[in-house]
């Protein structure tokens, strides 16, 4: 079981670099948890993604799940606290200097400018996860149905994931 300090350090670093709505966490955590440290299998990673989407919290709740896997309840707690420390500290700093910050355009332009790379990384995560975990006709039908519902209806992801779980229970 990895030491809590290692966990804290890993999640703190992830917290420092996650920009662009949090979805960049998917490729980052996938790489670190599955490929690098082997704390989770790919299947577990995807299941964790489903579970973290069932709560109102941000996608970063995936940190709680992966931390839990690596170090039990305390691992989950440490992961959650440390992944959120950087953004909370930054928001507090911003709140404090809010009136002076309006004219620091260079920061905003830089962050806006790298968002296309985030899009590429998220697409790559979908590709990698799909290529290694999808098999069989049924799963592709579910993927297509999920895509259509999530793209063109306003149904919340939580409801769609719960529904998919129900269907999975029936057909498998």
């Amino acid at each position, binding site marked *: 079981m990895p030491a809590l300090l290692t966990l804290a350090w890993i999640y703190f670093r992830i917290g420092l670099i996650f920009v662009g709505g949090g979805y960049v966490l998917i490729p980052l955590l996938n790489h670190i948890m599955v490929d690098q440290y082997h704390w989770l299998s790919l299947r577990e990673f995807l299941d964790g993604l489903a579970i973290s989407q069932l709560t109102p919290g941000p996608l970063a709740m995936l940190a709680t799940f992966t931390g*839990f896997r690596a170090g039990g309840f305390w691992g989950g707690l440490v992961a959650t606290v440390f992944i959120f420390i950087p953004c909370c500290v930054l928001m507090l700093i911003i709140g404090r200097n809010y009136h002076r910050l309006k004219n620091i355009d260079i920061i905003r332009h830089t962050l806006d400018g790298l968002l296309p790379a985030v899009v590429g990384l998220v697409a790559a995560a*979908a590709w990698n996860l799909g290529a290694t975990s999808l098999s069989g006709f049924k799963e592709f039908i579910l993927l297509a149905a999920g895509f259509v519902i999530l793209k063109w209806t306003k149904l919340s992801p939580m409801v769609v994931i719960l529904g998919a779980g129900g269907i999975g229970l029936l057909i498998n």
Partner: protein
Amino acid sequence: MNGNLSKVSLAELFFTFAKIGLTGFGGGMAIVALTERICVKEKGWISSEEFMHGLAFGQILGPFSLNVSTFIGHHVRGIAGGIVAAIGFILPSFLLVSLFSWLYFTFHKLPQLQAALKGTNPVVIALIVVVAIDMGRKQIKGISSMIMALAAFCATVFFKFNAAWVLLAAAAWSLGISIYRRESN
């Protein structure tokens, strides 16, 4: 900080955001809408304009539903307020995910659970695809951003680069462009 705002107790901040964090199902923007209704319209803790600015900063810095909570908490009661609001907002989700994780890793081998999760897997991937497309339509405008997105995609899929390095490279590139544009203006 306004004078009348300092009357708001930290406990009230905590429970307000815990309520948002517990009932704001639907994620992301649904939560922001709920936060706006409660903090701007009902309680009058923050003006609508300041709220939008907080949201703009929050979106740059990742998990914006959490960031907006921190921002409002700080606006109402300073640093302690920001921390209390952030903890209040995250706590319900943290407890839920911990409970789910415990169930998951304890009953891993339960055939029913495995069958259900086999159904959720493709849908989770569909969700990521939808996010990529929606983000792409908003963020990718013009040739240079298209090249950047493609390069990031290829670097991770075909050349197996670490996502963090790709992100850092993109940030360095983007910073260079911003500085260049400012110099030439």
